[in-house]
């Protein structure tokens, strides 16, 4: 039965690539025009922030949408690099790596269990998951701080990392992803007598690469950009992350001017790693068609 499924799948993929070329609702030109048009709109804000990060404060305040700096300057970047940027970067990388690893593993395990492993209380767990997402985070800042402090992990790496190791939305995404996947492949492994852990590890996970990569990218992005949690869990400058450091650099009253260049330079620096990562990994999403049974 598994063999047959593989056959159909491979055949299907071949048919598909032929069909795609034959039937397209729009002409090729039309489709590209649409793709390029949307892409330009979507990249625009990034280009504007990149351009403005090389302007002087004056220029940025007066001509924010111009894409060409009047006088090209790297002052904003110099100021960023003169600060504790290397330290902030190190902390951000530590947090991001651990949090991303934790989330991908724990969220997918829980998502799998909620979708495929019938256990008592499963519905309650799922309902609870949706419920906790529904409480606005802003009201939880102080209580979360009190919990972190009570556990004795305030102003430490565990305090920064532990609370972020799992997220309800990630579990929710994975659970619903497994719901949309046909359980037939796994069923075959089950008949072969594979245990739950083996089934999950060697059948389900490899088959879910596209969803795992999605979760990976979302987790990376979330932990890389996290600010409120960092304010809640730390105070010493030694534990500053990029977001906390730049938030502080760019803070200030009206008298400090608008400081667009430094804010946007920080935004640009923080955007690029996520964008590069996405570019690299999105390719792998495509190659998963056929999942475990291919290759």
């Amino acid at each position: 039965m598994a063999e047959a499924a593989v056959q159909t799948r491979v055949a299907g993929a071949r048919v598909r690539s032929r069909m795609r070329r034959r039937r397209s609702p729009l002409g090729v030109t039309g489709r590209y025009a649409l793709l390029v048009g949307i892409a330009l709109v979507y990249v625009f804000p990034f280009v504007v922030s990149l351009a403005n990060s090389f302007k002087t404060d004056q220029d940025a305040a007066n001509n924010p949408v111009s894409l060409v700096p009047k006088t090209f300057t790297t002052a904003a970047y110099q100021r960023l690099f003169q600060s504790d940027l290397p330290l902030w970067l190190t902390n951000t990388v530590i947090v991001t790596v651990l949090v991303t690893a934790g989330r991908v593993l724990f969220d997918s395990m829980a998502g799998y269990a909620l979708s495929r492993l019938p256990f008592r209380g499963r519905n309650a767990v799922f309902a609870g998951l949706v419920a906790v997402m529904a409480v606005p985070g802003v009201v939880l800042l102080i209580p979360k701080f009190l919990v972190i402090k009570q556990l004795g992990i305030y102003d430490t790496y565990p305090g920064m990392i532990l609370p972020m190791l799992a997220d309800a939305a990630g579990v929710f995404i994975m659970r619903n992803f497994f719901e949309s996947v046909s359980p037939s492949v796994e069923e075959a492994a089950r008949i072969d007598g594979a245990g739950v852990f083996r089934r999950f590890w060697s059948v389900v996970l490899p088959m879910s690469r596209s969803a795992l990569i999605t979760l990976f990218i979302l987790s990376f992005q979330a932990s890389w950009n996290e600010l409120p949690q960092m304010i809640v869990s730390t105070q010493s400058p030694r534990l500053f992350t990029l977001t906390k450091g730049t938030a502080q650099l760019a803070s200030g009253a009206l008298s400090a001017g608008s400081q667009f260049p430094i804010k946007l330079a920080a935004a640009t620096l923080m955007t690029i790693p996520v964008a590069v990562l996405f570019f690299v990994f999105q390719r792998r999403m495509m190659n998963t068609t056929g999942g475990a049974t291919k290759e």
Partner: protein
Amino acid sequence: MKITRRALLAAGAVLTATATLAACSSGGGFGSPAASASSSAVSSDNHQPLTILIGTSGDAETNAVKDSVAAWSKQSGTQATVNVASDLGQQLSQGFAGGNPPDLFYVTNDSVATYASNGSLEPYVTQLKNKDSFYPSLVKAFTVNGKEYAAPKDFSTLALVINTDMWTAAGLTDKDYPTTWDQLEQVAQKLTTPQHVGLAVSGQFERLGVFMAEAGGWLVDDNGKAAASSDANVQGLTYAKKLLSEGAMKYSSQLGAGWGGEAFGTQKAAMTIEGNWISGAMTKDYSSVKYKVVKLPAGPKGEGTIQYDGGWGMASQSKNKGGALDLVTYLTQPDQQLGFAKAFGVMPSVQSIADQWKQQFPEQTAFLDGAASSKSIPSVAGISDVIKNFDSQLDGLSSTDPKQILDKVQTNLQALPGLS
């Protein structure tokens, strides 16, 4: 429906856990609530290190404060660390809730009542040796229910900022700086061209309120009771409405600007009403614009403006109040304040160096001159919501009866504790 019932059950289970946690905590981490702030003299262990939390306007301010604190630290032998807040409000709230707030921190006169109302602030000002050197109006701005909560560190007032090129282009000279409402109206009309409007202000009470003050009104009367719907206030807003309807004045938002300074800096307006923070913004963002600052014109009841005050708040939970008191005394000394003024352009809170400051910043004298006739936002908890609501009504001032707006403000004010 199932979801909610289960969620409730789960919540119940968690509540139990929370109660347990709370029980454990009473002995340890959370600590007991702070001792009543009103009691006895400031006294404590003078060797406990101090932490100071500031919301900075930039490196200049950060470094100046750090240097001063370091100098004090060396002199007193007490360790002191200056931290720069990423989000001052949140970090203070965490400190107060967790029982370890910074010993000293920035407060503004419109937030002092909020922190004072729950006992977070130590009313230490009476014990300051240099208490009498401050402008009395500043000390008053930090007074809540008769207690003086924060030593003023600097302040700002609103004044009239004029684009000198546009001024000359309209055929106006130094003699034409407006000193009355009528004159302000006339020059604003003259300065209005298709390219720019005569006067631009942020459409908020925090700016338009100057007209209420100049007409002899204010949100509260001399006894501190709500008085928003007074005739004087109606007169003030009616004047502002007239300027708006003539087109001589516009809200900065109508010009696509975030605040008056932006409308002024981008040359969409020839005049604006702003505080001395505008000089920093002009230098950094709009240095090509030449401008002059003059006092606001007098209204029917004389001169009037609004002041905004910064001060040093001391946590009632501080473990070294003696040291903190000593540090505040040091930081508010005339020579320190003059140093801060030079470093980041604030107006000192002590009267004795007013002349030195004016010599240092001749172009900004009008701001300091305003101190004599300025009013501050009443320090009452909950006032910010009332003002926000007021602001949103002022948005429609050009098409609304000022009396109607002020009546609603009066109702809202009367709902606040102690104002009715």
